[in-house]
């Protein structure tokens, strides 16, 4: 009998709650009876919420429509006002298991922006039913996975070319030719660059976004892996021509490369520290470390150092394909630096005003 009572009352409670405060305001008798019955049952029902008197929690219902067909997919009910959009997404995932939360894009209007996961349901509500439009954002992949795959590829691909697989290069020529030391140095530098990136992804960076569509990963990987194959082919070719200015050019470029790598690393550590300590209120400041002094001149020194690495690598190997790759990286990094610089200008106006985005003084 208690079981039967247990099953009937939640519906009754839900019914009243669904009609919002309207019923309870006009039917005070019903409300007091409801409270009384609640009291009686709360002793037996361990799972009841500690709602005893004045139980006016208005649960919301979230109606989810497909953005293209406007058809209703499902209704998520019993959404408490203090929950966030992420909770709604989890409930939606339970109802429709093929769409896990990171893949779900919810908008208030059909052409509006996607709502953030941290948004409170209360702030969206105009009535007790909230209508949201659902878009399938496609297969998602976490940022860590994204970067790990993107950086492991070039590391391995370059080594494949370095060991001079017989299918790529003519074996006879490969055995005959003496390899200039710069080829070994280039391999070392290239591997160093990507190993550093991988270690930073694993131990240093803290990703705020969470996920990115699979398509982005495929595009990024195609770009990095494709270009690495292209540059590795020429540097490790039996007919490779060493730089025109000989050892001086190589040593100078190698030094510049190592400096930029160290700089990049320290900047990333500094940015991660800042994220970690939660001190996002001010622009990262230079410390005793000379590599971080670039913060005084430029707002995105990590991009500056990355660009510097690739340009030094180009000079070190004197290979046109590396130059083309470096040029494309410069363009990409400049776009990212400009975007970030604009964000910084909005947030930290007085400090960042006289700084350049990526290249000191110039840009």
């Amino acid at each position: 009998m208690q079981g039967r009572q247990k099953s009937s009352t939640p519906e009754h409670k839900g019914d009243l709650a669904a009609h919002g405060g309207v019923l309870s305001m006009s039917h005070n008798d019903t409300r007091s009876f409801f409270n009384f019955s609640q009291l009686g049952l709360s002793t037996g029902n361990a799972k009841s919420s500690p709602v005893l008197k004045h139980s006016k929690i208005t649960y919301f219902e979230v109606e989810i429509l497909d953005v293209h067909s406007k058809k209703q997919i499902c209704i998520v009910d019993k959404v408490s006002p203090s929950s966030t959009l992420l909770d709604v997404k989890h409930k939606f995932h339970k109802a429709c298991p093929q769409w896990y939360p990171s893949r779900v894009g919810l908008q208030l209007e059909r052409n509006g922006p996607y709502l953030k996961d941290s948004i409170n349901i209360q702030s969206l509500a105009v009535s007790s039913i909230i209508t949201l439009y659902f878009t399938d954002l496609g297969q998602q992949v976490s940022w860590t996975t994204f970067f790990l795959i993107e950086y492991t590829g070039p590391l391995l691909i370059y080594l494949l070319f370095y060991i001079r697989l017989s299918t790529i290069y003519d074996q006879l020529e490969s055995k005959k030719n003496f390899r200039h030391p710069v080829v070994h140095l280039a391999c070392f530098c290239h591997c160093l660059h990507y190993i550093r990136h991988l270690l930073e992804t694993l131990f240093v960076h803290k990703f705020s976004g969470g996920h990115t569509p699979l398509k982005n990963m495929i595009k990024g990987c195609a770009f990095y892996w494709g270009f690495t194959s292209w540059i590795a082919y020429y540097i490790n070719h039996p007919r490779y021509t060493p730089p025109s200015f000989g050892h001086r050019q190589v040593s100078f470029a190698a030094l510049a490369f190592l400096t930029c790598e160290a700089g990049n690393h320290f900047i990333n550590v500094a940015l991660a520290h800042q994220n970690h300590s939660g001190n996002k209120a001010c622009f990262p400041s230079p410390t005793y470390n000379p590599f971080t002094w670039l913060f005084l001149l430029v707002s995105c020194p990590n991009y500056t150092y990355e660009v510097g690495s690739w340009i030094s690598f180009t000079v070190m190997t004197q290979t046109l394909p590396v130059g083309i790759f470096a040029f494309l990286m410069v363009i990409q990094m400049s776009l990212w630096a400009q975007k970030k610089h604009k964000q910084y200008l909005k947030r930290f106006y007085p400090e960042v005003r006289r700084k350049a985005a990526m290249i000191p003084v110039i840009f």
Partner: protein
Amino acid sequence: MAASGSGGSRADNGYGSQQPRRRKGPGALATAYLVIYNVVMTAGWLVIAVGLVRAYLAKGSYHSLYYSIEKPLKFFQTGALLEILHCAFGIVPSSVVLTAFQVMSRVFLTWAVTHSVKEVQSEDSVLLFVVAWTVTEIIRYSFYTFSLLNHLPYLIKWARYTLFIVLYPMGVSGELLTIYAALPFVRQSGLYSISLPNEYNFSFDYYTFLILVMISYIPIFPQLYFHMLHQRRKVLSHTEEHKKSE
């Protein structure tokens, strides 16, 4: 390749495309400039068409007609590069990348294949794509002219969205056959190719590049073709509804 795709989005903006952002139309000065540009281009391609007909009548055969229209073809096809600037400056609401891609493929065929490999100029495939381009461009530029002046005759719109069904495959076949014919000559002369070893550690094989270009037609052509078919259904059915409602 038919550059007719680039204008499709432009025309459709007035026909209820579902873009929430409102694109500002070009100002009066820009419109005047565009009208002049499109009229000049229409006239130019008409000159090429007339030149072809006259040469055919004079020679009696349709072989080697390329030589009679070589100069205007080069001039007006290269002039289409201005369209990329139009998109970049925003006076034409098309995507820069798409337009650049289409114009560059035409310019590539005109200069890097037909002009550079002289032995190919007497091939019949050249006539095939020149005719396809001529008819397409005349219709396309007159379409733009009339729509800028807001007096688009249905015939031109119909022609633009229907004739491509024949002209586009015709043009693509002509282009592919021309590139294929050019291959042995490129291999023989080592045209535009660099080999190792050299100071900048770079190599480029034009022969392989041309083969890759030919292969790239396989994914790209169907996409553009079906896109145009889709546009056709959208635009021509819209007009019918419009007419019915009147």
